[in-house]
Structure formats: C-alpha cells, structure tokens
C-alpha cells in the first residue's frame, strides 16, 4: 500500500491518537508500558471489542442497534440462573452455546421487525431493549448474583498466563475469553472482506435501493446483521460474568453509547456503507484507553466526564471532517459536469 493511500485512511489517524495518548500516559505516570498494564488494557477490551465487532456490521448495513447491552444482560442472568437452578456441573461451553442461541433469537426479533416494519431501527431496538430489561427484572427477578455456579466460577478462576511487573510487583492474568475476542474479530473481518454477504452489507448500507436492484436480498441481510449482533451480545453477557466473578444488573449501563461512539471513532459512517473491523477495533482501543487511564493521566474525578467527552468529539470530528472534504470533492465534480451538460 502506498503512502498516499495510507494517509487517506481513518485507521492511520486513530492510530496516531492512540500512540500519542499512550506516550502521554507513559510520561505522566511511567506506568503505561508495564506488562501488567498492557494486560489489563487487553482484558478490558474483550467484552467491548466483541460487541463493537458485531455493531460494526449493523452500522455498516445502515442500521443501528441499541438493544445489545440488554441482550447481554438477559443472557447473563438467564444462563447463570439456569445453571444455579439445575445445579449444572458439565462443560461451560454449553452455557456459551445456549447464550449464543438465546442472544441470536433476541437479535432475530430485532431483525425481523426491522425487515418487515421498515421502521427506523433505532426505534425498534429501543422498544426491544425495554422488553429485554423488563424481562430480566420482572420474570427473572434479577439484580445481583454474587455466588456463581461451578462451571462459570471455574472458568473465572482459570487464566491463560500471568505476568508480573518487575518494578511494582503487580500481577495481571490473561483470561481465557481473549480467544473469543480474537475469534470474533477474525470472523467479522473475514465476512466483511471476503464474502458476498459482506459486500452485500456494505452495499445495503450505501444505498438499499441500488443494492436491491443489483440483486442483494436486503431483508435477509438486515435479519442477518441483527441476529449476528444478538449472538455476540449473548456470548459477551456470559463472558462478562466470568471476568467479573458475579452478575450485576448495571454492568452494561451506557454500553450502547460507548460502543456506538467507538465504532464511529473507528471510521465507520453512522449512515452505513463504510468502515473496517480493524478500524472498529482501534476505536474501541481508543475509548478504553481514555476511560481506563484517566487516573494514570492524573485527571481529577470531577473532570473525567468532561475529558472523555472532549476526546470523543475530537476523535469523531477528525473522521467526520475527512468525510466532508471527500464529499465536497464528489459533489464539486457533479456540479462541474452538470454545468458542462447545461452549456451543451
């Protein structure tokens, strides 16, 4: 890839911001490039990273989903409660499969409603998120589960490896679920880049009418992206349980906004049709870098919200401004040709 092309890419600018921020944190605290801090950062990326990969597909297809944190919440309580009630002792994988199935079903509801009703998906998913929340609170009667069933507790206790910082003596472990994050990113990347389905998602996001004329099944693509998002939502719900060692109803509070912001920060247009899974990952990395290092940066608690807001706006404006420039160029060309035609 030549330099000119790289300079045009959003990922390049996000990477620069990330490196700059990392260096700043290192200078301010001397604690950024320690093995355990990097490990903590990677660990904090697992759940948001998976969610963002799924949401990137939804946004690329020109839709939006705000119900996924509630899908995650419902699956988190649903599976944990089920395991408790039946005193399940088998392999934990079954729990993840079940979470994926339930999540996919909830996503399917979103997708079918979106494909049939043709309503703005923001409204549909706002409605379903209230239903999922209500179900968790009303039917499952859940707010906190502090003692996990054995299979989940075992998974929470097992880690791939542990690193210990030489200077501070602090240790951090790599959870098994990092495998799932890598897997999700690879699958989403593969679908979007190398399959007809992925091309279809971009096409529908760019212009649904044109996509339909070319022969893509717009409804099927919509249903797919929402179902896939639901599936990921379900899996992340259970993943969070194994990371936290407990369930609490407000674990995913505010996730819809941070994840949407991360995807847009990563270069996907909110109107659909563009973006990459790598950019999305960088967006999540930047968001987590900001939210998990404000203390290391030395920003007082009263100022942390302001700083987060400013950094997000700065990041999003950078990519939005680039889009404005390129659009101007295109519309400028159209105008010119239009004038030419008028003259003739």
């Amino acid at each position, binding site marked *: 890839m030549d330099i000119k092309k790289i300079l045009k890419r959003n990922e390049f600018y996000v990477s620069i911001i990330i490196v700059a921020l990392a260096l700043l944190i290192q200078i301010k605290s001397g604690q950024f490039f320690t093995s355990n801090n990097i490990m903590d950062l990677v660990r904090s990326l697992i759940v948001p990273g998976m969610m963002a990969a799924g949401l990137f597909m939804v946004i690329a297809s020109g839709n939006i989903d705000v119900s996924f944190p509630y899908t995650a919440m419902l699956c988190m309580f649903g599976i944990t409660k089920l395991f408790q009630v039946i005193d399940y002792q088998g392999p934990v994988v079954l729990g993840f499969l079940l979470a994926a199935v339930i999540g996919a079903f909830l996503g399917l509801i979103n997708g079918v409603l979106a494909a049939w009703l043709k309503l703005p998906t923001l409204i549909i998913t706002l409605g379903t998120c209230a239903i999922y929340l*209500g179900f968790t*609170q009303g039917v499952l009667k859940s707010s906190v589960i502090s003692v996990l069933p054995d299979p989940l507790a075992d998974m929470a206790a097992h880690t791939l490896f542990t690193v210990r910082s030489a200077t501070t003596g602090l240790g951090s472990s790599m959870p098994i679920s990092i495998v799932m994050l890598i897997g999700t990113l690879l699958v989403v990347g593969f679908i979007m880049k190398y399959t007809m389905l992925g091309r279809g998602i971009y096409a529908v996001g760019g212009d649904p009418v044109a996509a339909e004329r070319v022969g893509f099944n717009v409804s099927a693509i919509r249903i797919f992206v929402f179902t896939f998002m639901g599936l990921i939502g379900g899996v992340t719900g259970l993943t969070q349980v194994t990371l936290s060692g407990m369930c609490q109803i407000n674990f995913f509070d505010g996730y819809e906004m941070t994840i949407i912001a991360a995807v847009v920060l990563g270069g996907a247009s909110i109107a659909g049709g563009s973006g990459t899974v790598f950019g999305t990952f960088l967006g999540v990395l930047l968001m987590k870098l900001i939210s998990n290092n404000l203390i290391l940066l030395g920003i007082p608690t009263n100022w942390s919200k302001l700083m987060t807001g400013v950094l997000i706006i700065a990041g999003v404006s950078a990519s939005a401004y680039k889009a404005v420039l390129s659009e101007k160029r295109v519309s400028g060309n159209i105008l010119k040709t239009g004038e030419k035609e008028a003259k003739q």
Partner: protein
Amino acid sequence: MKKRLLSILLCTAMVATTLAGCSGSGGSAETSAEANAETDASGGGEEAASDGGYTIATVVKDMSDPWNLRHEEGVKEFAEETGLNCFVKGPSKTDSAEQIQVIENLIEQDIDALCVTPIDPEACKPVLAKAREKGIVVLTHEAEGFDECDFDLEAFNNQEYGEAMMDELAAAMGEEGKYVTMVAFLSSTSHNQWMDAAVAHQKEAYPNMELIPEERIECEDNMDTAYNKAKEIIKKYPDIKGFLGASSYDPPGAAKAIDELGMTGQIYAVGTGVPSVSGPYLESGSNPCVLCWDPALSGKAMLKLAVMILDGEKDQIKTGLDLGIEGYENLNVNGTNISGNAILVIDKDNMADYQF
C-alpha cells in the same frame, strides 16, 4: 453531508433522551409481575385487623432484593411477637412510579399506619400527604431530612457512620499509609456526607494516614467500574494501603482488584457492604470488614414507633427513648428526624449470621 451530520446528532440526542426513559418504561408491562411480588407477611392475613389490633403496612424498595427480604423477616418477627397485622408490599423492581402506585393502592385499604422506604422521597411526597390526610400514621426510612411524615427513622447519624468506617479502615491499615475514598457518584448526597466525615475524622485522629490527591473516585454503583478504577489507583500508587467505599459495590470491587493484582494482605478495602456480595473478599481478607445496618431491626423499630403513635404515646418519642431493639436503645430525636446507633460491622466471623 450536512444531512448526515444532522442525523448523527439527532440519533445521539434521541438515544440519550429515550434511554433515560427506557429503564422506566420497562415497568409498565409488568403489572402482573407486581401482583405476584406483593406478599402477605402476617400469619392471619389482612382480616386479622378485626381483633382490635392495628393494621400496619410496610413498603420496601424492591421485593426481589435480598436486603428487602431481610427487612420482611423483621416485619414478620414483629407481627408474631405482637400479634398485630403487619405486612410488606413493594414494587417488583426499584422503580419509583411503581412504588407510588403500591402506596396509592394501600391507602385505599383500611390501614392504620404506613412504614415506607421511599425510592425517591421527593416523588413520594404527594401520595404520603394524601395518606396523612386520611389519618394514616406515616413513617419513613433512608430519607434523612424528609418531612412529609410523622417521623423519619435513620439507623444511624451520617457523621457517626463515616467516622466508624474510618476507624475500621485505620485499624486494618495500622493507622498509617495512603488511602482513597470511593462513592457511587459525586452527586450522591449521603455517600459524600459519609466520606466528608470520614476524611475529617482521619485528619483529626490518624495523622499518619494520607489521602491521595485523587481524593474521591466514582464507581457508578457498578462493581466492574469500582474494580477497574481500583486497579488503576493501585498502579499509580503501588504503596497505597486502603480504599474506603461508600457504595456497597466499592469494597468488593476494590477487593477483587487487590486479590487479582496479588496484593492481598497489603491493601485493604473497607466500607459499606453486604455479606451476599462481599462474602468472598471477607474470606480472602481484602475486605477486613464491611459496615451496614440490619434492615430487619430498622424495620422492627419503625413498626414499634408506629404502634407508639397509634397508642397516643407520640409525646414520649424524644431523645433517649429505648425501643428495646438492638441499636435503637438510645434514640436521637430532632424534630421529625430520628436516628439510632445501629451501625453493624460484619467480618469473616459473624457474616454467616446475616443473610442479605
């Protein structure tokens, strides 16, 4: 492109505003669940009032929460001891509108007194005023300074609670070293009152302890946030020795960070907590103890006060009154505000006695 930017703005604005309403709207679909959640704690049911005793309703914040189930235990015990008709009702989840509806329904029934733990005291004012107009005795709890009631009972004085927390933390830290305070939100009134009192007490009584410049961290009542923030603090201040948490998710969240970073026995997290959540960390020692009050006892104390008022002994409710309930033996009465000394310190040895 302008359109596109506008749509982004609109989207975010809509999501933000509607989400605020989202959590509330979830409740409307659950009126049937609410009916299931209302239980009758008295042995004889509501008709028991016919034997000449009083009918006293207790309204809790959330019927499914272990804390409120404990409250219900106290009410049941009181009903058994006195033979009065006392029962508990409440919303199926912590939802103020639903709680007000429960109170509305109750005052239409023939009750003599109402003991409420309001979710949103301000929002409860009109309905409680209505109850008092009908001659129902109203007592509130966990609503310090509330005045639309006969009395508001608090388990303890906020200042004393903050000081007690600091005493426990100081003991765990050996009265020296760096520490930080944690609250749910910088806007949570009582949390910040406790922490202000605790810090003032430290400056006075424990000069060798030092509050780090970050002073107060927000955990948003979320154990995952408390855990992440605590981890960050430990990284920045590897020599820190203590966390003092106001939210019941602070001590367990910080303790999880301490255990995972391999600092167990060197850093301690003390503060508000309940055994059901802090249990594992009371065991590991990263929570040397947690503080709270027993809702069963505060529930009983409220009922006792209600009976006194109904018996026409309201003038006897003054500072120094002994209700005969542990922690409420020497009440402090100030206008309509009553506080006890019912601070409960739970550690590894007595945690089994408190199932909430």
